[in-house]
């Protein structure tokens, strides 16, 4: 049971960060990103490569990971921001796949990423911190859990402050009525880009912790499924609410990992994994059909048509 709780909380913390990034994309700017996994992967790989190949200190690699993800965010948002919502979704889905394939087999890149065999040996620094801080009594996983949740709370604080700032109010204004904000002389595109880059950086940070939770990362860990999980979390928690991603993530992983309690006489672990993904799909459908605003969401019409 403790094992279950810790594994839920580790995953939930990582995905709360990812979903918070997506929340900035969708909940606050209405940009439908189906490729958050791209930023997640770039964050994870940047950190892993910098630490294990170039021997960077962890904190610098983390900052670089967020920066790299933010830069990719700007590159994606720059052209994509003009697309209609569902087209943007497909475009970003494709961007996520491009990232994965490039990490897997692009000449040049694979020399650093190890291609399909992945990359390892980037987490000693992080788990070494336990000794430095005198926290040897914690297991590695417990330490990771604590670290992730401290970061989740910090991010929550930062995002709250930002959303309440004048900058955040403009962002909200754009969400409510883009034309009105434009008429007020706000550079709507610039605001959207900033929010997109910020969200991408958070996704990159989530990727760092995701990598730390695994002893090695391979491109296969960054399937489009990751983006879908983030979406389910937002759907559960509700877009545009600050606590939504956190609550949604905990609920999602509690439910997701609960399938490990299915007795093995009933079902092989492989089948249980399939069942889990069926549940993910059903959860998406049920949420879209019944509560598109999420459990904590505050904007009913987010999924409504803005008539063309």
């Amino acid at each position, binding site marked *: 049971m403790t094992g279950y709780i810790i594994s839920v909380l580790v995953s939930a913390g990582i995905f709360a960060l990812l979903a918070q990034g997506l929340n900035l994309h969708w909940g606050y700017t209405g940009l*439908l990103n189906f490729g958050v996994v791209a930023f997640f992967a770039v964050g994870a790989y940047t950190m892993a490569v910098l630490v294990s190949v170039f021997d960077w200190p962890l904190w610098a690699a983390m900052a670089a990971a967020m920066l790299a993800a933010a830069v990719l965010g700007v590159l994606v948002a720059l*052209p*994509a921001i*003009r*697309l*209609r*919502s*569902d*087209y943007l*979704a*497909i*475009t970003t*889905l*494709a*961007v996520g*796949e*491009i990232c994965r*394939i*490039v990490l*897997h*087999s*692009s*000449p040049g890149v694979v020399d650093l990423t190890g291609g399909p065999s992945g990359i390892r040996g980037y987490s000693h620094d992080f788990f070494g911190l336990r000794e430095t801080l005198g926290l040897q009594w914690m297991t590695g996983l417990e330490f990771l859990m604590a670290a992730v949740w401290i970061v989740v709370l910090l991010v929550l604080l930062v995002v709250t402050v930002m959303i309440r700032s004048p900058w955040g109010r403009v962002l909200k204004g754009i969400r409510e009525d883009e034309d009105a904000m434009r008429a007020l002389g706000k550079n709507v595109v610039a605001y959207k880009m900033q929010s997109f880059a910020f969200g991408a950086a958070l996704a990159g940070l989530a990727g760092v912790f995701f990598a730390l939770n695994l002893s090695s990362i391979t491109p296969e860990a960054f399937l489009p499924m990751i983006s*879908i999980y983030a*979406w389910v979390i937002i*759907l559960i928690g509700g877009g545009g609410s600050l606590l939504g991603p956190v609550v949604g993530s905990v609920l999602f992983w509690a439910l997701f990992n609960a399938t490990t309690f299915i007795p093995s006489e009933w079902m092989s672990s492989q*089948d249980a994994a*399939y*069942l889990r*993904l*069926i549940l*993910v*799909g*059903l*959860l*998406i*459908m049920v949420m*879209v*059909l019944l509560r*598109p605003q999420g459990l904590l969401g505050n904007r009913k019409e987010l*999924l*409504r*048509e*803005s008539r063309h």
Partner: protein
Amino acid sequence: MDEALQLVADGVVVAAALAVAAVGLSLIMSVLRMINVAHGDLLTVAAFAALVCVNAGLPLVIALIVAAVASALIALGLELSLWRRMRARGGSNFSLLLLSVGLAYVVRHVLFLIFGEETHQYAPPTRELAIGPVYMTREGLTVVAGGAVCMIGLAALLKWTRIGTAMRAMADNMDLARASGVDVARTSAITWVIVGVLTGVGGVLLGIGGRIFPNMGWNIILLVFAAVVLGGIGTAAGAAVGSLVIGVGQELVTHSALGLPPEMKQAFVFLFLVVALVIRPQGLFGARRYV
């Protein structure tokens, strides 16, 4: 040169199945303004439906018909139970897309649960025939012929029949179609049935040309989408041209002169898709405004 020609021939086979898959997605996008992410997985369902028939000893033609009928019924069932309900409450394009993502997950993993991870074939592949400078299998030729029949048939239906004109009218202007007496709900349902048949045939063609496994449709959904975007939404000719460009282009980038690993070919197609979407969202060859 011979290598290039052979790659073109391989690409044409891929394109034929892709086109049938693409035109279904494209019709739904144009007539119902919805991107059905589950389209790929419904192709897979059809391929497996035919596999079940073949394994039960039925000839492939019968299996194809069964798959087409089953697929049409599924498409109709989903329209009546899901999509229509969502549209009636004013669900946005995006909520429909999200719903179809959920459906895609359910369908694919139900298939995994039933059929496991193994790949299957309808029959062991036959020997390659030399056609001029290139080699093609009998299966490859079947796929090309089947694809051509579907595309020409659909083009004729859209162009010459009353329902086809109504579908194009709906794609153009939904309210005006209503104002002309088109029963939009009924025409939507018929569109889904037609698309269901195409999905059924497309799935089986994909299975004939390659292998059958639960991820087969999901793996190509972005390719299919790229073909649609490239060719322009809502026409059979557009889907055919888009699929040819994608199918042949994707094989050609594996030409040994370029020295790229074959896994990279999809990355190029996706990159192309992104660039195409951003530069010309109405399709490279399509004229209709959609975005």
